[in-house]
């Protein structure tokens, strides 16, 4: 056997609402269980049923998890998109299709292989009900792919058995469909194809997990009790996953009652209001939304910033502006999130790049919000949130204690001489708060979004106002020592040129660095994990002459934030942008960097 092993991109072209997601996940999981890294992406329409939807899987034994352009195998089960799908296959690649009805000869390409499997016809031979014919057709193509790509059948069968553990009656028909697809392919084609998979041991203890589910688990482990939310793609699955897991993990053992409260709000404004009310009252609370929701929440975010109330918000970004591309990925809300609300406001942002980091950073968000009594926003995106990723297993240190920040207890209030909600007692900009109901006669104060003095009394004095807002800014400085530090990819700087990236760009950026290295080009690299930027970020920017800022929006918003926050000379920050709604690829990064270099006449 020859050909490409464990290095392929396969895309499934389905009709949404036909049960294909389950079969496609089964496909990915089987390769994962063969010890080979996989990276699946949903490319789905904003629709419930009937429109084209795609599922693209990159299989790569070296562990590169970013998207790669160029489709080696396309599984076409949606006649609506046949033309487009056929055109998307790389020359020499394969078009595996449902041949129950013949393809139009005219439409066929000569530079790709056609593998017809009469999926529906086989399915109709086994199943009478139309819905079942539809569902098992999906399993039939999984079976055919097992033969064509050399996937171990036992692995797939085990997955089926696990999936239907509680409905064992469904196991035999699934096996039947799987084998029928497998046998048809074996009998009619030279199996395996020129691209195939082969067992490896390259997974270690990694898991397959969606960023949103990891985020939800982070909130549970961090002790969030209140969630106020409003449904919006691609953030909805955070609260849904929170609900699923918290119901299992957080029932009072004696009474069976809920140690949590989830309120589906009337809109994003209310969702944020609920979070603010709950944290003001001493609970840990959060909400999740996307760009449009952040726009709606902005007024409240400003209140939380100015009145100094902890808030945890997750922004799972999608293509903007306006309703934009609601089911495509981008990083387009960086400025609107970092500076959300009117007046002088700026917010602590955390940028996870893997589900594992979603879990950890979500937990950190609660500590940071309590510590700094301010909104803390985790900025994720659709690619990270709604796709499963190969990621390190989640881990929780049982010795970890929640950092609830500076909160006076009744005993504290009895001891201190006088209470002023906004007195900078420790000279770090962070003041002591009290929770309603703490003490009968001490510690009450009036929370307000208006200007106020150190004792929370309304004031229109300019001097007092300036003192207060400067003190709030001091928190920003203090926060630099607490937020997650950037990740550097070299022991010491090797080059005068560097790249900066964050979030889901990381996969492609790392791959691009390796590709550059193969060409003898070495670039220093830094992954930024939070705002405010700390000393390491400043140092990296200072020590390099040209820095490529890789991000997924049109206007280079991250670059603007760097310039705004650090007064960096814009000339040395070069925009590397991808914003077509698909996750960025290593090749795009390389091409754009090479093009910039030509334009800038910079030599490596």
């Amino acid at each position, binding site marked *: 056997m020859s050909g490409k092993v464990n290095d392929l991109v396969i895309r499934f072209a389905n009709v949404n609402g036909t049960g294909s997601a389950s079969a496609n996940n089964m496909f990915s999981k089987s390769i994962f269980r063969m010890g080979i890294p996989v990276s699946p992406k949903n490319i789905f329409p904003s629709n419930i049923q009937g429109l084209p939807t795609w599922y693209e899987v990159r299989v790569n034994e070296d562990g590169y998890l970013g998207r790669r352009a160029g489709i080696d195998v396309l599984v076409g089960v949606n006649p609506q998109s046949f033309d487009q799908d056929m055109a998307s296959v790389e020359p020499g690649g394969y078009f595996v299709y449902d041949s129950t009805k013949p393809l139009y000869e005219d439409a066929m390409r000569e530079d790709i292989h056609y593998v017809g499997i009469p999926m529906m016809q086989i399915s109709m031979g086994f199943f009478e009900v139309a819905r079942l014919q539809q569902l098992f057709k999906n399993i039939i193509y999984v079976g055919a792919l097992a033969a064509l790509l050399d996937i171990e059948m036992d692995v797939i069968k085990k997955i089926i058995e696990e999936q239907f553990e509680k409905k064992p009656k469904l196991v035999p028909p699934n096996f039947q469909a799987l084998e029928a697809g497998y046998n048809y392919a074996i009998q009619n084609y030279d199996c395996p194809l020129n691209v195939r998979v082969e067992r490896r041991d390259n997974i270690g203890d990694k898991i397959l997990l969606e960023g949103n589910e990891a985020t939800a688990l982070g909130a549970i482990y*961090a*002790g969030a009790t209140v969630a106020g939310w409003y449904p919006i793609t691609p953030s909805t699955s955070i609260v849904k996953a929170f609900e699923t897991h918290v119901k299992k993990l957080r029932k009072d053992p004696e009474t069976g009652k809920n140690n949590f409260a*989830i309120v589906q709000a*009337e809109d994003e404004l*209310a969702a944020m209001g609920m979070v603010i009310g709950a944290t003001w009252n001493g609970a840990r609370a959060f909400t999740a939304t996307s760009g449009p929701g952040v726009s709606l929440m902005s007024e409240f975010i400003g209140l939380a910033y100015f009145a100094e109330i902890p808030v945890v918000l997750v922004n799972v970004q999608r293509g903007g502006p306006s309703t934009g591309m609601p089911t495509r990925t981008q990083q387009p809300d960086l400025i609107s999130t970092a500076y959300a609300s009117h007046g002088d406001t700026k917010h602590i942002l955390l940028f996870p790049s893997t589900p594992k980091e979603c879990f950890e950073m979500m937990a950190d968000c609660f500590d940071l919000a309590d510590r700094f009594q301010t909104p803390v926003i985790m900025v994720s995106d659709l690619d990270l949130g709604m796709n499963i990723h190969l990621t390190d297993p*989640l881990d929780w240190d*049982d010795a970890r204690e929640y950092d609830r920040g500076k909160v006076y207890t009744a005993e504290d209030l009895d001891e201190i001489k006088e209470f002023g909600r906004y007195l900078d007692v420790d000279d770090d900009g962070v003041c002591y708060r009290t929770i309603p109901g703490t003490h009968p006669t001490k510690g009450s104060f009036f929370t307000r979004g208006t200007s106020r003095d150190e004792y929370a009394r309304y004031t229109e004095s300019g001097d007092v106002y300036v003192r207060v807002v400067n003190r709030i800014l001091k928190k920003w400085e203090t926060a630099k020592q607490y937020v997650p530090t950037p990740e550097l990819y070299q022991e010491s700087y090797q080059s005068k040129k560097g790249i900066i990236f964050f979030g889901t760009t990381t996969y492609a950026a790392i791959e691009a660095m390796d590709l550059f290295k193969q060409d003898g080009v070495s670039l220093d690299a830094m992954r930024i994990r939070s705002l405010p930027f700390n000393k390491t970020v400043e140092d990296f920017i200072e020590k390099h002459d040209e820095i490529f800022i890789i991000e997924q929006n049109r206007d280079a918003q991250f670059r603007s934030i760097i310039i705004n926050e650090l007064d960096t000379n814009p000339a040395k920050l070069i925009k590397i942008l991808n914003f077509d709604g698909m996750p960025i690829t290593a090749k795009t990064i390389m091409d754009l960097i090479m093009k910039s270099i030509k334009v800038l006449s910079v030599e490596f």
Partner: protein
Amino acid sequence: MTYVRPTFRHPGLPKNKIGYAKSDYEGSISTLCAGCGHDSISGAIVQACYEMSVEPHKLAKISGIGCSSKTPTYFLSNSHGFNSVHGRMPSVTTGANMANRDLIYLGVSGDGDTASIGMGQFVHAVRRNLNMVYIVMNNGCYGLTKGQDSATADFGSRSKPGSVNQFQAIDLVGMALELNATFVARSFSGDKTQLVPMIKAAMSHPGFAFIDVISPCVTFNNNVGSTKSYDYVRDHIEATSELDFVPEKDEIQVEYEEGKSATVPLHDGSVIELRKLSPEWNPTDRYSAVMRLQKAKIKGEILTGLLYIDPESKELHDLMGTTDVPLNTLTEKELCPGNEKLQQINQSFR
């Protein structure tokens, strides 16, 4: 500015059964216009809490934006207060209530804050039956921005600058009934005899207790509806120096017997017909309440009193099955499932 009341009090002041004097329920000195109906409502809240022996720190007062929403500064200094953003008091109160079900939540709002910008949040707090007292200080106009009509201004009423309101009024009480609110009442700021027990009843109600309080604006609703009136002429004189002109008026006080209607002259000389519910009224019958309200409307009367109460009311926490202990008292021990559990969860992702 916030004016602080002198702390000295006569040592012999009477105390309630938990040992607090009425002064313990007071707040800072009001900065509202002299004679503002809202101050009377603040007074009624103080009186009700004193009489109810509410522990001040076991009550949270939450408001939106506007004249009415400023009032929580003027009562219950020993309670935590939250002056949030315009029209969003209900959501902040919802979150606060979720965090600690043991406090009393007193939400204060105005007609602009509730019937316009905050309508969405108001109706959803009603339908969730959030356990709170929701008081609307209803004066039919926007005071802080100089007297624009609000959505509760009656059709045909004339504003201070002289325009006639062409739009139908939103009747918050009718709306609350329609939305199946479990406690619906209306009162008048000048009628403390009715208002104080009503607030007490509302605080005792498990669920959403809505009180619409008609509360005249002495400054911007102080005009008669005619271009020939003395007031009309005076308003035009006023136009040259209108900014600081605040008419000093006494608070309107009215008392009348159960079952009788009363005519109350307002500061601006216009007249409100008030009609109390009769003693044989059954406040637990929503249908009759709706009918009675419609009849009063046709007759040009403003119906006051407790219009409807659902004695079977189940508040949001009961509907959701929340634990009896306030969520904000739970610690890592109850909240964090631990690493062993997490490793099992990891296994399900392989």
